[in-house]
């Protein structure tokens, strides 16, 4: 067996052991802090420290008790729906706007100051305002994600357009391409890898933001679920929530990365 592969499996396991040790240490010092084994039982079911039989959070992630009481799978789906809703909206508006800013100096001058000012604002700062406008949890969360996602998409799209080399544009000029042909045949192929980089960044931030946004808006969703478990004093579920959020975020990023590579001509042995 390949020695590198062994290292890739063994070394993280060593770190995992250290993490569990530290975690146990904290659980012994902080009162009511869940131990790793409590958390395991809470996640997958079994007999807890009070000798009670419990059903794990992950043993039945698909249950639906009523609208407010659903399994963890549905909580995640709810959050993902909002993330992708806001993300899709940001794409639909951000990509054309980025193309425009990249292609036109005037558009760049017009929009750049606002992008610079709004980009550093935490999307959560918008949340109260959005809640006031929409009076609806879902719309508020989606529009928060929209505001989160749009900046990296605009900026990277514009950057992609700017990186189109003068030579390619000269080819287009000699062939007398229409503006539309220039966009489709020259600018987009160059810009697409940049757009996907922007999308990947956006999606990662959106997933960060949704957890916090849902804690504030309440209702349903993985963020609110974690907050709810805090209110229920079910601290082990908070830890489970954190791990799940991490895994889902990792999965999202990996999938986005694969899609991005698929569309990136420079990553196909073509330079």
């Amino acid at each position: 067996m390949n020695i590198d592969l062994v290292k890739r499996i063994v070394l993280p396991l060593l770190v995992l052991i250290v993490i569990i040790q530290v975690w146990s240490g904290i659980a012994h010092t902080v009162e009511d802090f869940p131990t790793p084994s409590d958390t395991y039982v809470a996640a997958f079911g079994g007999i807890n420290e009070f000798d009670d039989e419990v059903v794990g959070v992950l043993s039945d992630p698909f249950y639906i008790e009523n609208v407010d009481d659903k399994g963890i799978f549905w909580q995640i789906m709810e959050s993902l729906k909002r993330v992708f809703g806001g993300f899709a909206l940001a794409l639909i508006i951000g990509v054309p706007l980025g193309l425009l800013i990249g292609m036109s100096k005037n558009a760049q001058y017009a929009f750049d100051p606002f992008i610079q000012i709004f980009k550093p604002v935490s999307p959560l700062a918008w949340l109260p305002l959005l809640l006031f406008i929409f009076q609806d949890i879902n719309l508020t969360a989606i529009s928060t994600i929209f505001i989160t996602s749009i900046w990296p998409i605009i900026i990277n799209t514009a950057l992609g357009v700017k990186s189109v080399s003068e030579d390619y544009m000269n080819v287009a000029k000699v062939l007398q391409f229409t503006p539309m042909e220039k966009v489709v045949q020259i600018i987009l192929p160059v810009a697409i890898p940049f757009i996907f980089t922007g999308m990947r960044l956006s999606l990662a931030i959106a997933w960060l933001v949704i957890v916090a946004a849902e804690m504030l808006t309440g209702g349903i969703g993985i963020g609110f679920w974690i907050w709810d478990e805090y209110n229920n004093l079910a601290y082990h579920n908070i830890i489970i929530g954190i791990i799940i959020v991490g895994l889902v975020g990792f999965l999202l990023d990996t999938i986005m990365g694969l899609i991005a590579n698929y569309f990136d001509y420079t990553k196909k042995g073509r330079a």
Partner: protein
Amino acid sequence: MSEFLSLKNVEKRFPISGKDDYVAVTDVNLEIKKNEIISIIGHSGCGKSTLLNMIAGLDMQSEGSIELNGKKIRGPGPERAVVFQNHSLLPWLTSYQNIEMAVKKVMPELSSIELRARVEKYISMVNLEHAKDKAPGELSGGMKQRVGIARALSINPEVLLMDEPFGALDSLTRANLQEHLMRIQESVKNTVIIITHDIDEAVLLSDRVIMMTNGPDATIGEILEVNLERPRKRVELQHDPEYIRCREAILSFLYEKFAKEDE
């Protein structure tokens, strides 16, 4: 003698902030005949590219006029195809697709069968059948440049403009491409304007060599007629008195009359 491509009192100034304009080239007068092969030679920075870009329509002259078939050139167009120094193939398309894109745009009336036949014809003209489905990133420098030439020729231009097409290549590949170009030219008989730094290349390829003085205010210094029969054979030419005369004329122009100290 039909006036095919004519440059009259052409001048190009570049604005420089806070100073007077930089006059790159001035007072350029040139008549180019149909099917003539012209090379432009001169020291770096004398305005060769500037001149070619104005003929291509990628840049506008500040004074004077450039006419093709009696019509003023107002912008770029496919009747003046350009082969760029750095090939400028689109890296996300294969060789075939790069040529296809150009033919499709310039000859939209072609059926898909005719389109295919045309693209294949120009690919085989540069002997690249084996590389037609490769992306530019997978080709050698010489092969890329051949695709660039095929792309330029495939749209049936009236003038082929080449800005140091072989400048980035090693001397063996360069010689090979010169042979390619001469062979193609035998059958296609285009009007060609080729910028070069290479004296042998200029003499070997052209009917006339335009020698440019140094900038600023660069202009045409001398025009040399190359009276050599075609097809020309590189090896045989080495001892040909006419070839030697032409070489010496260019050498003396570039290194005696208009030598550039800072090179």
